[in-house]
């Protein structure tokens, strides 16, 4: 019986690869845009006008305080009501990017705030402009604090991307649901799905470790 199930699973291999591909593509796009937007939001949260900072703060809290499944449904079902046509893929990208950007915003804010005040004062006193201070002095130092949770967030993102199966995108998780209808061994199927996610996440975890080592080797220790 197990033999039969394995054979039938092997037949699902192309489908599984498609699902894995979808998960990777979704995550990658949301990772790139979420990071760019997240850094932008974090920097503006600290250095932007009061109004902008408050708006960003409120948005981030709203997104962090509501389930991702609800967000993705809202985007998928409500935007078309407002006349904005979008397919499941686009809706998934928007929802994931937004979620990712909001979490990264918080990570970046914490990183910026970890830079000692004296650093900003030294940069200020030497006549660097606001954005020069951010770019040359604050962000490079914030990165050491930002990097570990940032990569942790990427791992979460890949796992969160499984929620897009709820709006019908055939990602790795949905492939699991499809396969389990033909091969009634949920344990085996979802074990393999789990392996698929781990295979994508693990190199990221390794990469993070290497980056972290490289950064601290380049700087010497930060003095407090």
């Amino acid at each position, binding site marked *: 019986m197990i033999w039969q199930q394995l054979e039938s699973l092997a037949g699902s291999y192309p489908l599984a690869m498609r699902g894995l591909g979808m998960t990777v593509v979704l995550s990658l796009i949301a990772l790139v845009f979420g990071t760019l937007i997240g850094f932008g939001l974090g920097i503006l949260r600290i250095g932007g006008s009061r109004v902008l900072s408050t708006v960003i703060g409120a948005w981030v809290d709203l997104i962090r305080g509501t389930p991702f499944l609800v967000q993705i449904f809202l985007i998928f079902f409500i935007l078309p009501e407002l006349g904005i046509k979008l397919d499941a893929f686009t809706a998934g990208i928007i929802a994931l990017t937004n979620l990712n950007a909001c979490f990264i915003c918080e990570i970046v804010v914490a990183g910026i705030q970890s830079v*000692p005040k*004296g*650093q900003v*004062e*030294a*940069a*200020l*006193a*030497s*006549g*660097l*402009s606001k954005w*020069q201070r951010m770019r*040359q*002095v604050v962000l*490079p*130092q914030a990165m050491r604090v930002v990097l570990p949770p940032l990569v942790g967030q990427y791992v979460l993102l890949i796992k969160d991307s499984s929620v897009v199966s709820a709006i019908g995108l055939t990602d790795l998780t949905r492939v699991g649901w499809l396969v389990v209808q033909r091969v009634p061994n949920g344990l085996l199927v979802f074990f393999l799905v789990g392996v698929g996610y781990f295979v994508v996440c693990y190199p990221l975890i390794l990469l993070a470790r290497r980056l972290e080592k490289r950064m601290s080797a*380049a*700087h*010497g*220790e*930060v*003095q407090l």
Partner: protein
Amino acid sequence: MARCSCELPSGRFSVVIEFQGVNKWFGSLHVLNDITLSVQPREVVVVCGPSGSGKSTLIRCINGLEQIQKGDLVVDEKRVGDPATNMTLLRTEIGFVFQSFNLYPHKTALENITLAPIHVRKTPRAQAEKDGRELLAKVGLGDKFNAYPSQLSGGQQQRVAIARCLAMRPKIMLFDEPTSALDPEMISEVLDVMVAVAEEGMTMMVVTHEMGFARRVAQRVVFMDQGSIVESGAPEEFFSNPKTERSKAFLGKILRH
């Protein structure tokens, strides 16, 4: 080296820093109480006084690290805090040396020094690096250009910090207790650099309790207590013959150490 204001180059304003009835509060705490003080070009003024008397706040107002709430503060002919004054531009003329050095830990000694010249003054990188190496040599660290701050001693870090300020060719240098975070054996190497800067004719305000330094290069010592300037005079005069009870008590305390 003796200097006097009668040697001022003609045509220049005769005051670089002028406090006129300056007041500042932190909440309800009156930190600067009706400060009136002017500093001439090439003058070296030492500021001393007990902890919490407002010395740091006084010099931090000069480059706008703190804002004043009342009175007038004119620096290099520009009114500090006036919306018409470009503070970023004014700051390029004022070097500030911190008690805790505040070198950028992710940059080498040379990169610390060239950052502002390259990005603010728009000096070509090659020129900025050449100048930076010369400045490092001048503060006695010619071989340390590639060292990160964490690889330098406190005294070396503070000398890099001074070189970092000098690289902007400022008109004014402010020092906030530049040697009080240092081990005793490193104090003189930093003071020597400061003396050299003073002797080149830099206008300086120095918060310090280093009386030897004050005697060597200062034209004036200003004594602060509880946000006010209580006494001000030539170093010899102030140290040997303090006029107020508060300055006597203060000098008694620091000289006993």
